[in-house]
């Protein structure tokens, strides 16, 4: 088990700056997700940790040891690739054994035929076989050991790829969107399984994904990256409830957070003619964005925000109500219990009440600024 320290990592491909100075401190045994839209640099960062790519500037430390200049082979890190990258010409057992053979056997011992004659080879090979059997057992792929990757389903290949990483107990695991090639059902069960494997092995894990659900459900901490920068690093709850940037708020959560263009006022903010009871730490008149999660809205009495229903999405346990606010003609989505929305039709007039304590305010650059809900009712200015 080893912590990972990334210090001011920079990387450019030609004229494109992919990483613009990323610093991350990972605790030993932590499960950290790098999440962000495609092209945000998360995979490049992972490959720099792995040693498959070298950074233009910055340092990588694994377990307190600087590995910046080391080859991938010498870093003792295992990686699961998006397309699994199993050796097509080897059986599952040989695939699992390869990392052990490369590390536990000496070069002469690895020679074909001749290696069998070297002293100690037999004992080492037996060790490797035992370890392979153990890992295969843990991943329930024991019955597949004689097959080749081409004869396996996507889910089975994925397990073999996990097994190949697990089998040698590395200092850290890196996973590059390992679930993206699986169907939805398999993805959900494998997600849980990876978390359990991590809990058992306790090995520091960096998990790259563009799927915020994966990042939120699996990780101890989530690192949200955008445009080659680390925007926020925190527990899933922190980054969801207290995003430091409008882009983070917009990226996490489905459906997306509602954003309302507002003007700062005295102890309140103004949305068109409406005064909303949120105090902004900003000079009056400043243009701000107010973020409000769909679950912070409910159908309210006469004092809510007046809106017209555009669209209804029935999800089973709940319902998404898409509406257009009369003030400012802004689209807004509310997540409602199904019973509450009974009888609503498209075009109906509703009023939406909000939990203003959950409101988030962002300045013109998208940076989070302080907001305090005021205990007063919504008033027409």
């Amino acid at each position, binding site marked *: 088990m080893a912590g990972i320290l990334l210090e001011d990592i920079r990387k450019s491909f030609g004229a494109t700056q992919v990483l613009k100075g990323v610093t991350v401190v990972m605790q030993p045994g932590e499960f950290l997700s790098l999440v962000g839209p495609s092209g945000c640099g998360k995979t490049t960062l992972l490959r720099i940790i*792995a040693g498959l790519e070298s950074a233009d500037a910055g340092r990588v430390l694994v377990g307190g040891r600087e590995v910046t200049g080391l080859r991938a082979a010498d870093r003792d890190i295992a*990686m699961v690739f998006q397309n699994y990258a199993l050796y097509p010409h080897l059986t599952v057992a040989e695939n699992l054994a390869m990392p052990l053979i490369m590390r536990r056997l000496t070069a002469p011992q690895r020679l074909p035929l001749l290696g069998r004659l070297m002293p100690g080879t037999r004992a080492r090979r037996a060790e490797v076989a035992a370890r392979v059997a153990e890992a295969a057992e843990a991943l329930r792929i024991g019955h597949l050991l004689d097959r080749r990757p081409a004869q396996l389903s996507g889910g089975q290949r994925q397990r073999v790829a996990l097994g190949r990483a697990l089998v040698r107990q590395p200092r850290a695991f890196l996973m590059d969107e390992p679930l993206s090639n699986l169907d939805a059902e398999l993805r959900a069960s494998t997600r849980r399984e990876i978390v359990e494997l991590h809990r058992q092995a306790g090995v520091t894990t960096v998990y790259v994904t563009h799927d915020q659900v994966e990042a939120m459900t699996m990780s101890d901490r989530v690192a949200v990256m955008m445009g080659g920068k680390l925007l926020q690093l925190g527990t899933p709850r922190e980054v969801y409830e207290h995003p430091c940037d409008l882009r983070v708020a917009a990226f996490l959560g489905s459906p997306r957070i509602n954003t309302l263009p507002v003007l700062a006022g005295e102890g309140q903010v103004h949305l068109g003619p409406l005064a909303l009871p949120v105090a902004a730490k900003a000079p009056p008149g400043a243009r701000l964005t107010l973020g409000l999660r769909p679950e912070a809205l409910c159908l309210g009495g006469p004092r809510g925000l007046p809106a017209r229903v555009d669209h209804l999405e029935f999800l089973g346990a709940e319902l998404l109500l898409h509406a257009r606010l009369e003030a400012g003609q802004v689209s807004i989505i509310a997540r409602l219990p199904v019973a509450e929305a009974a009888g609503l039709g498209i075009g109906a007039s509703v009023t939406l009440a909000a939990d203003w304590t959950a409101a988030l305010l962002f300045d013109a650059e998208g940076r989070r600024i302080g907001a305090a809900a005021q205990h007063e009712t919504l008033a027409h200015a």
Partner: protein
Amino acid sequence: MRPGPERSLLADLPRLLLLGFGALLVLAPYLWMLSASLKPGGEIFRDSLSLWPERFHALENYGKALREVPLLRFLLNGAVVCLAILALQLLFAVPCAYALAKLRWCGREAMFALVLAGLLIPAHVPALPLYAGFAAAGLLDSYAALVAPFAISVFGIFMFRQAFRSLPDELIQAARMDGMGELGIVWRVVLPNAWPTATAFATFSIVAHWNDLFWPLVVVQSPAMATPALGVLFFRAEEAGNDVGALMAASVIVTAPMVAFFLLAQRRFIQGVATAGLKG
């Protein structure tokens, strides 16, 4: 008409006939050689055309071929030279091709351009300077002289490079993560996954050098070092100038290993192509 095997056979008939005719055309000299090796001299040059000998003269022909010159020695020389050339070609071409296909380094494109340029030079162009070199080094009439000029095959580098390029980068990166060095990757991962190419290249190389007459003719004088093709030439020059039956028998013996090899490799080759075609 409904689709079925009968119908497709009928539809394929013109194509089959055409291909069959082409194959016959290509095989005809070989068949004639085979038939002539079984006939006595007089029968070969009769003006009637018949493949089957009236009088079997096989024992005499093959016996003479094996007796007059050390044919088996020629075959052994051929095997040694071809295998040595193939081994060296693989030893150099595979890592070179890997470096050209999968590693990023300064000057890679220029180096590849040189490889392509090398493809354009016919083997006969450097023959004279090479001969002079071997003569100066006192290496004429040796395996070294037969093998060394072909140790590096630009064609092999080119062929393997094209094949290696289609391997996914992740496979190589996974091997690096597993702790392999670059040479380990070349021999343990890259080459085994380009098996059809390796088989095809081996076929090209072995057939070409087994049948090569030009270079052995330049550097070899003694029958002890002769390769099969050169051996047949010696045979004709020495004894059997006009014994065509025996000459044909010698030719059959000399080509037989190639035919056998080709049939075996072809099977392997098709297997390799079939499995490589599966989406894995």
